[in-house]
C-alpha cells in the first residue's frame, strides 16, 4: 500500500508551548486513521498542519508523494470537516456544499450535478434550500461532510467529528462515516478524544500525549499491547501495579511489590525492561471469587469488594487491594447474575501469567 500522508520530524510551537513535538507518521492510502489524545495533546494541531492552516516550525509534510510543507490550504488535495462544522450561516445547504466547486471555477451544470449527487450520498435530498440553523445537529454534520467530500479530496480531515452529537446520533454517524469512506475511497484522518470512537472506526490509531506520539497501531494492538502505562490508561479500563522485576525466564517476569505478593506476567520478547516497571491487567482478564480456585491460575491477590456496578450486560466490581489501590473486574452478566459478591466481602483476584503485561516506566521514543 502506498502512503497518502507522511509527516517527517514535524515540530510546531504556539509561543512557549510546543504543541507538536517531533512527530513522524505515515498514513496509508485509503486508511481510516485516528489520532487519539486528551485535549491539549496537540492532535488538532497535527490536523491543521496537514490541512495547511498552520505551518510547521520544523520538518516536512508530504501528501501523495508531493512535499506540501509550505503550500497554502487551497493548493493541497485535502479538505477538512471542522469541529463545530463551520458551515456558512448565511448560505443555503446547496451553496455551502457548492462553495469549494464555485471557488475552483467549475461550471454551474457540473456543480448542480456534483452537489446533487453528494447530497443524496449523505441523505440530505430535499433540504437544499434550508439554512444551516434550520437543520438538526446530525444534518449539519452531514452538510459539513458533503461540503468537504464534494471536492473529491485525496485526504479528508475530521476534527472531533462526532463530539457535538448526542449518544444515539453519534452511533448512527459512526456507521455513516464508515459507509462514506468505503464509497468515496479517500483517506480519512480523524482527531478524537473518545477512545471507543477511535477503536470502532479506525484501521489504525495514533495515541498522542503532550505533543508527542506515544504509539501507532491497529485498535487491537493498541488495546492489547500498549507501550506504556499512559497509553494503557487512555485506552479502555486497566489495572496497574508498579514494582521491580526480580526474575526473568523465557516468557515470564516475576514482579515484586513491597506490600503485595509477587506476581508473574508476560515479558516483552526483547527481554525485561530495566528499573521499575508497571504491570497491566485488563478488567475482563481477571477472575474474581470468594474462594481461591485451583484450576491453574498463576497469580492470586487478596482484595475486598468496594463497590459493585451493574451495567446491564456486565457487572463491574471495584475491589481494594492491600496497597489501597482500587482495581476493576469485569464479569459478564451470564456469569454474575447481579452482584453475588457483596460490598466488604474479602475476595481473591486470579489470572494467568499471559493475561498480564509488563510496561516499561520509560518507553523507547517512537
Amino acid at each position, binding site marked *: 500500500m502506498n502512503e497518502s500522508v507522511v509527516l517527517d520530524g514535524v515540530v510546531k510551537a504556539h509561543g512557549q508551548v510546543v504543541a507538536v513535538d517531533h512527530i513522524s507518521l505515515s498514513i496509508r492510502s485509503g486508511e481510516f486513521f485516528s489520532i487519539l489524545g486528551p485535549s491539549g495533546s496537540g492532535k488538532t494541531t497535527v490536523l491543521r498542519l496537514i*490541512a495547511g*492552516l498552520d505551518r510547521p516550525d520544523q520538518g516536512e509534510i508530504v501528501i501523495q508523494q508531493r512535499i506540501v510543507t509550505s503550500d*497554502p*490550504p*487551497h493548493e493541497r488535495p*485535502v*479538505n*477538512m470537516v*471542522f*469541529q*463545530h462544522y*463551520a*458551515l*456558512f*450561516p*448565511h448560505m443555503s445547504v446547496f451553496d455551502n456544499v457548492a*462553495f*469549494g466547486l464555485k*471557488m*475552483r471555477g467549475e461550471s454551474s451544470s457540473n456543480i448542480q450535478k456534483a452537489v446533487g449527487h453528494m447530497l443524496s450520498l449523505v441523505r440530505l435530498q430535499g433540504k437544499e434550500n434550508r439554512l444551516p440553523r434550520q437543520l438538526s445537529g446530525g444534518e449539519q454534520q452531514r452538510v459539513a461532510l458533503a*461540503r*468537504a467530500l464534494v*471536492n473529491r479530496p485525496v485526504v479528508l480531515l475530521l476534527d472531533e467529528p462526532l463530539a457535538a452529537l448526542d449518544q444515539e446520533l453519534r452511533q448512527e454517524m459512526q456507521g455513516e462515516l464508515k459507509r462514506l469512506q468505503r464509497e468515496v475511497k479517500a483517506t480519512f484522518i480523524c482527531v478524537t478524544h473518545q477512545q471507543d470512537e477511535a477503536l470502532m472506526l479506525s484501521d489504525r490509531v495514533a495515541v498522542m500525549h503532550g505533543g508527542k506520539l506515544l504509539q501507532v497501531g491497529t485498535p487491537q494492538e493498541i488495546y492489547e499491547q500498549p507501550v506504556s502505562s499512559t497509553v494503557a490508561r487512555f485506552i479502555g479500563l486497566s489495572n496497574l501495579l508498579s514494582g521491580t522485576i526480580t526474575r526473568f525466564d523465557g516468557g515470564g517476569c516475576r514482579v515484586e511489590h513491597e506490600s503485595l505478593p509477587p506476581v508473574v506476567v508476560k515479558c516483552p520478547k526483547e527481554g525485561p525492561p530495566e528499573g521499575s516497571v508497571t504491570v497491566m491487567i485488563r478488567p475482563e482478564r481477571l477472575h474474581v471469587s470468594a474462594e481461591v480456585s485451583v484450576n491453574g491460575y498463576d497469580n492470586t491477590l487478596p482484595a475486598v469488594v468496594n463497590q459493585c456496578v451493574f451495567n446491564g450486560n456486565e457487572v463491574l466490581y471495584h475491589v481494594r487491594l492491600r496497597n489501597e489501590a482500587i482495581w476493576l473486574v469485569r464479569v459478564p452478566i451470564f456469569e454474575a447474575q447481579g452482584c453475588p459478591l457483596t460490598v466488604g466481602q474479602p475476595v481473591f483476584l486470579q489470572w494467568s501469567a499471559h493475561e498480564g503485561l509488563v510496561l516499561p516506566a520509560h518507553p523507547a521514543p517512537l
Partner: protein
Amino acid sequence: MTTCLSTSSAFPVKLILLSAGIFLSLFFLVPLLLVFGVSLASRGMYGGIAWIATWENYQRLLDPLVGTIFLRSFLFAGLTTIVCVVVGFPLAYCMARASRQWQLLLLTLVMIPFWTNFLVRTYAWVLIFRADGILNTFLMRLGLLEEPLSLLFTDVSVFVGLVYGYLPFMVLPLVVAIERISPQLEEAAFDLYASMGAMFRHVLLPLSKPGFIAGGVLVFIPSLGAFITPYLLGGGQKMMLGTLIQQEFLVSRDWPFGSALSFGLMGTVLLLWFLLGRTSYGRNSS
C-alpha cells in the same frame, strides 16, 4: 418579550416603562411637535413667530438653492460614510481578531478622542490645516512645498473633519459584528479553495452586514446634519444643511423656515431608511 412585560415580575417594569414614556413625551415628543407647529407658522416682522398658518415654508424647500444644499450634504455624508467603511473595516477587523490585551488598547485609542470636547478637537484641525499650520509648515520644511497650500475652508478640510469625527461610530459596530464571526469560517473558506478576496466577498462581507448597517446609520445621519465641522473647517463658505438650519435660527432669525428645513431633513432620512428596509436589509432578515 412576554417575560419582560409580565405583570408578575417583582421588578416594577410598568413603572419604569411609564417613567421612560413620560420623559420621552416631555423632552422629545413635545419639542418635536412644537417645531412642527413653528414650521407651519409665518415669520414675524422682526424675526419672531407670527401664528399665521402657511405651507410657504415647505414650498421654499423646493427652491433650487435649497436643493443644491441638500444634494451637497447628501454627497458629503455619503462620501464620509464610504470612506469610514473603507478605513474602518480593516481597523475593526484587526481589533476584532486581536488578543484581549491588544483589543483593550486599541479600543482605548479609538475612544480617547471622546474624552475631549468635539469643538476643541475640531479647532485642533483648524490649527493643522491653517496656512501657517502644522501640515503646511511640515511640508515646507521637507521642501515639498514652496508656499503654503490653502487647505482650510475647502471641501477637503470639511471632508477630513467629518471622517475624523464619525469614524469611531463606524468602527465600534463593525468590531461587534466581526467578533461574532467565527475565525473557523474564514479557515473553512480557505480550505475550500477561496482566495483572500473571495473569502472577504463571500464570507466576511455578508456576515458583517449588521455592523455595516448600524455603522452606516451612525455615520450618515449625523454627518448629514453636521454643522460644527462645516462651519469651522469650511468657514461657512459652502452651505451644508446643518449650517443652513443653524443660520436660519440664529442669523436670519427665520424660525419657521429653519423648522421646515429640519422636518425636510428628517423626512428624507426616514424615507431613505424605509427604502433601505424594503430592499437588502429587509430581504435578509426575513
